[in-house]
């Protein structure tokens, strides 16, 4: 029904108002702000709860007291140990914040990829970002490249370079005179993933048997999160996510056939390129410090779409909230369930995420959602 309406729309109309109109006709006019607000509140409650829990027991009242003590008119509570200040401000809070940023970035990139590729399996790792970043990190961790250069950690830089290179190669291979066919891009990405993964494996079996740090990175972990990392990551993620959010209406229209979107005056090639670059940038930045955290980019957008419908103006921000909440919770489990030892957070996201996702799929099949 939606298709018929668009077909009747006059071709070559370049005005943005028409895109709005088509987008609105496709997804409905009402925008559920209140759902976003509730989602935000749930996320805030989750973050506070996560900050109050850890392998070192700190009473909830002291957590609040220590956190508030940074504000000018609050004093450090009398019963607080000095180490609690360090634990909360240097270890737990940076971790919760970084997990939230990374979760939001992975989920929103995932939503963008799924909308762009019209492929339910698309996630931020599809076009080779993960394997490319993994290869970059493996090279730094296992070969003679120094891990620190003048006190500067090279690991995220290498991961970032690897991820971006993989996407650039996939894109340049897929591109032809007519444009960039998405199927070719995905296939090229899959091939490059396989190649980069093979090179990583080769490096691993040929180098020192001390594989634990590499494994930790490949499974993802927030164990060394610092405030400065959140800062670095935000520099890349904020502009990327802004671009993605700015294309929400166009993503709605892109769910039609591409030639129909073109008729509405959308420069499909430009949109595709911009969205791929933005989502890749956000993903590479998100994984660079913390390793390959899987599943968030896949399940958060799908959950939102299955429960709350098809409007990308809503799917994108809500996916961000769901992804952030989910990853903060997953990291909480990772650092407390085997205390004083830690689990890789990527293991937890898969362990908790997969059954939850299957449950959603099942409910949807039964027609409940």
């Amino acid at each position: 029904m939606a298709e018929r309406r668009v077909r009747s729309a006059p071709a070559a109309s370049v005005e943005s108002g028409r895109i709005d109109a088509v987008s609105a006709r496709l997804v409905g006019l009402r925008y559920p702000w209140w759902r976003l607000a509730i989602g935000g509140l749930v996320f805030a409650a989750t973050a506070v709860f996560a900050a109050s829990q850890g392998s070192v027991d700190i009473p909830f009242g002291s957590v609040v007291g220590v956190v508030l003590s940074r504000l000018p008119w609050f004093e450090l509570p009398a019963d607080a140990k000095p180490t609690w200040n360090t634990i909360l401000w240097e270890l737990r809070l940076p971790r919760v914040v970084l997990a939230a940023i990374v979760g939001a970035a992975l989920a929103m990139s995932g939503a963008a990829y799924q909308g762009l590729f019209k492929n339910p399996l698309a996630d931020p790792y599809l076009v080779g970002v993960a394997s490319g970043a993994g290869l970059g990190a493996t090279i730094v961790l296992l070969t003679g490249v120094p891990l620190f250069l003048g006190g500067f950690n090279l690991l995220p830089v290498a991961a970032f370079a690897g991820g971006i290179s993989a996407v650039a190669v996939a894109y340049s291979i897929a591109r032809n005179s007519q444009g960039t066919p998405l199927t070719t891009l995905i296939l090229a990405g899959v091939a490059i993933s396989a190649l980069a993964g093979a090179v990583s494996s080769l490096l691993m079996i040929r180098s020192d048997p001390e594989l634990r740090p590499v494994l930790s990175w490949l499974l993802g972990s927030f164990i060394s999160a610092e405030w400065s990392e959140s800062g670095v990551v935000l520099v890349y993620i904020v502009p990327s996510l802004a671009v993605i959010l700015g294309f929400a209406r166009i993503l709605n229209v892109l769910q039609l056939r591409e030639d129909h979107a073109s008729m509405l005056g959308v420069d499909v090639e430009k949109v595709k390129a911009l969205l791929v670059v933005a989502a890749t940038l956000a993903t590479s930045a998100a994984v660079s410090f913390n390793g390959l955290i899987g599943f968030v980019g896949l399940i958060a957008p799908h959950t939102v779409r299955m429960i709350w419908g098809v409007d990308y103006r809503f799917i994108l921000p809500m996916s961000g909230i769901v992804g952030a909440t989910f990853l903060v919770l997953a990291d909480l489990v990772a650092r407390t369930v085997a205390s004083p030892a830690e689990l890789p957070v990527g293991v937890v996201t898969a362990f908790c995420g997969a059954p939850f996702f299957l449950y959603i799929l099942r409910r949807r099949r039964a027609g409940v959602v």
Partner: protein
Amino acid sequence: MAKLLKMAVALGAAMAIAACGGVPPDAPQAPGAPAPAAAPAQPISPDAGSPPAEAQPPLPAEPAAPPLPPEPPTPPPSPTPTPTGRQAAGMDTTSIPATFPVTVMSADGREVVFEEPPERIVAFDSAVVEILFAIGEGERVAATHAFVSYPPETAEIPRVGDAFNMDIEAIVELEPDLVYVFFPTFLEDLDRAGLKALYIPSLSQDFRKVADNIRLWGEIVGSPNEAEQVARDFEGRVEAVVESMEPFGQGLSVFQDVGGFWTPGRGTLVQEVFDLLKLENIAYDIEGYAQISPEVIVDKDPDVIITGSVEAIVGESALSGVRAVRNGAIYVPPTDALSIAGPRFVEGIERLAQWLYPGLFR
């Protein structure tokens, strides 16, 4: 990815092996015999084979030595000099005749019989290569794996695999009369290739058994006297450290970082060394090796940190308030001796002991 998973599983299995059969947790609690006589000029210490004098603790700044264990401030009393270490080995050199055939039980249940000493050994294990060189039989090592680096003479030895792979073809080509492996993966392949294989898992608990391994290899290669000497040297030096530490109660707390907050807990050889040196491992609640929560490091505030990279510890701003970091009490082991359960393991213990208690060990 499947490969990676396999490795993860292998690593997990290795950790599980290291973890099972944990060391009994009885904390060495020795309130200390009162020092009866005046302290001797020098505390007892292994007089032979002690590490070179230039073995300085590689501290980032001025080596602010960590405080000694609090209990008795005076050095331990020297009992009547007991013959330990090489002295003993040198004194009663009752010659042991090399007897053949030698039968060794392989860990997979086969009996491996040696009618004569094997001439060409593919020794797929760092510790065994070290043992063979230590007893003067290094020439028998025909090949080894890619990560063996000690002694320096091993640089010339052909490599026939790494931690996960064995090049069976290359091994057949070398025509060895024994292939030693510390993991069972390739036993069937070796058997099919008509090679004589011996499988003994590497030590994951009770490092004193290194001496037994030394004696075992002495028997296999027909040099029981040399092996006995090296084994006694090992035992004597361990015993000397034990005796020096005896008067002390539990002392400094320690955190060892093996990379990315991975740390050895109980049921590891490292924990045994900590027990021996009266160190309290802050990761004692962990079985085998695991990643420790950094919160716990801040909370337990270790006196001493052992790491491969000072930068990795000092660069972690959350750890800047930890006592070991404030005092510069960060130890970077100068060699890999403590990660290989061979004859040099005791040297690793001695060096750590010298760094920890410079007044007690020369």
